[in-house]
């Protein structure tokens, strides 16, 4: 019985918000447009209390039982409590409680500006390093798929910065030749043949291109090529993913509002 109420509510609210988009009844439209999601925010606001209690429990437990690294839990508790004090009890500025959160001069804002912001921004900036080590490790010419990943990644990296414009046509040509050889390297049985063919093509092709006057083609300009990759194949890929995600979301929503996906409610 207790379960049934919850299932019934999922189905009822689900269909209401879906069908409400089509029914001409302004209060319902208004509810869906504004209030429905506001209610969600309010409910999650209440849930925030539970989060706080959980956090306190976890860290107090650690400290009380002197578990490993318990000293650091004291730091967490200290940080948390000081924020609560500055948020609800001590103000420090001359605006009333509430708006003081965003007032320069309040203690809360000081903590935000000098502790919270730099920590967040620096965590975020760590990504610059990780992105480098991830690409160093993962961008390998393992198979054709991995090569495509690598090629479009590198062209984007080079083409988007001003350096990309300084790359002359012959250099891009040499890069292409090397790439083609890297992909087809498996076809060569002899290492020497591979090496000499590569060398000869690298010398001859620039002259052929120069002779045929093809060196002004956009293919040899990394920024233009980069823009093409972005606009055409990458758009196709992202459109496919977008449609896939939309279908996945819709099907999942459908399973939820017809009461089939129940594990979320513990079944």
């Amino acid at each position, binding site marked *: 019985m207790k379960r049934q109420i919850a299932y019934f509510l999922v189905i009822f609210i689900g269909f209401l918000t879906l069908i409400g988009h089509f029914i001409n009844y302004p209060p319902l439209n208004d509810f869906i*447009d*504004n209030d429905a*999601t*506001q209610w969600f*925010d309010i409910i999650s606001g209440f849930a925030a209390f539970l989060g706080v209690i959980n956090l306190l429990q976890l860290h107090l437990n650690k400290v009380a039982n002197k578990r490993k690294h318990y000293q650091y839990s004291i730091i967490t508790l200290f940080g948390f409590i000081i924020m609560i004090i500055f948020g609800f009890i001590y103000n420090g500025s001359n605006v009333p409680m509430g708006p003081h959160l*965003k007032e320069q001069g309040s203690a809360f804002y000081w903590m935000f500006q000098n502790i919270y*912001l730099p920590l*967040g*921004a620096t965590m*975020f*900036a760590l990504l*610059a*390093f990780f992105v*480098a*080590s991830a*690409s*160093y*490790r993962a*961008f*390998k*010419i393992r198979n054709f798929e991995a090569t495509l990943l*690598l090629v479009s*990644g*590198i062209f984007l*990296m*080079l083409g*988007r*910065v*001003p*350096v990309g*414009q*300084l790359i002359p046509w012959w250099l891009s040509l040499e890069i292409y030749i090397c790439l083609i050889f*890297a992909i087809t*390297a498996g076809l060569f049985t002899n*290492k020497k043949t591979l090496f000499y063919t590569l060398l000869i093509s690298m010398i001859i092709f620039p002259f052929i291109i120069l002779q045929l006057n093809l060196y002004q083609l956009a293919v040899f300009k990394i*920024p233009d090529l980069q*823009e093409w990759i*972005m*606009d055409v194949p*990458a*758009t196709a890929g*992202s*459109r496919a993913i*977008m449609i896939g995600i939309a279908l996945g979301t819709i099907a999942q929503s459908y399973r939820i509002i017809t009461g089939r996906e129940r594990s979320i409610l513990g079944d």
Partner: protein
Amino acid sequence: MTKIFTNIKKYLIDLGKLDRRFIFILIGLSVLIPLIKPNWINIPIKTTNNSQIVFNELNRLNEGDRVLVSFEYGASTKPEIHPMSVAVLQHLFSKGVKVYTVPLWPEGLMMAKYAIQEVVDSKLFNIKEHVDYVSLPYKAGGEIIIRGIATDLRSIFTQDVNNILLNEIPMMEGVNRVSDFDFVFDLSAGVPGNAEWVQFACDEYNVPLSSGCTSIMVTDAIPYVESGQIRGILAGMPGAAEYEQMVFNHLNSLEKNKYMNSNIAVVPGKATSRMSAQSIAHVLMVVFIILGNISYYLLRRRTE
């Protein structure tokens, strides 16, 4: 001779097992050095198509048109987005366009304040608060707020940031919903961002929208750009640098009008100088990837 070759080969293979901390140091230095010595490297900037579209779209606005500029970024993405905000505001003010700023991120409020302050302090334009620009306060809710701006702005905002009632601000007259604006410009670094503006407001009410966003968001936003739901896009730091240059050239070539102070020199923005640090880091990473592949190739040959 062969010994040298084998040695080189050995080093290259070892490169594959390189401690990642070594990469970290090099990346750090490649960013740090150009920042400390900005004039060591100077690379010209070329305009891409999407930035040009943004410029043309904003350039088409007339005197007295209303533009809503929405701020959805914070301190961590400030280096990328902030130069765009300043350049866009400069461009708009130079045309005598009325600007309405709205933050959708808590930090966006400060960012909007800093951006406006920077433009006002440059004394380049004859602008006054409540005559040429209005700043709306931050309201929590993300897409709900976008939805609210789309249908009934006054139900969400009753005062501006300085707690002045909107009814008392002359330039708010007749501004009730998103369709009362001639253009929406979105500066975003995440969610809510340009996708939400498309989904919840601009598409439905047919208001032109352009966006400047962080590089990472671009691939997600490109389908909207391709389909014209977003008109052009400023992509990350390079987009900011390009726009800065376009606005710089535009302001210099402009015949002095009543919105501009003729005796103040236009200064180039910050994104341009940051681009050299960016360039060096990119080249370094490409070099890493190439070295990593050579090492991988040699290792694979050996194991085969």
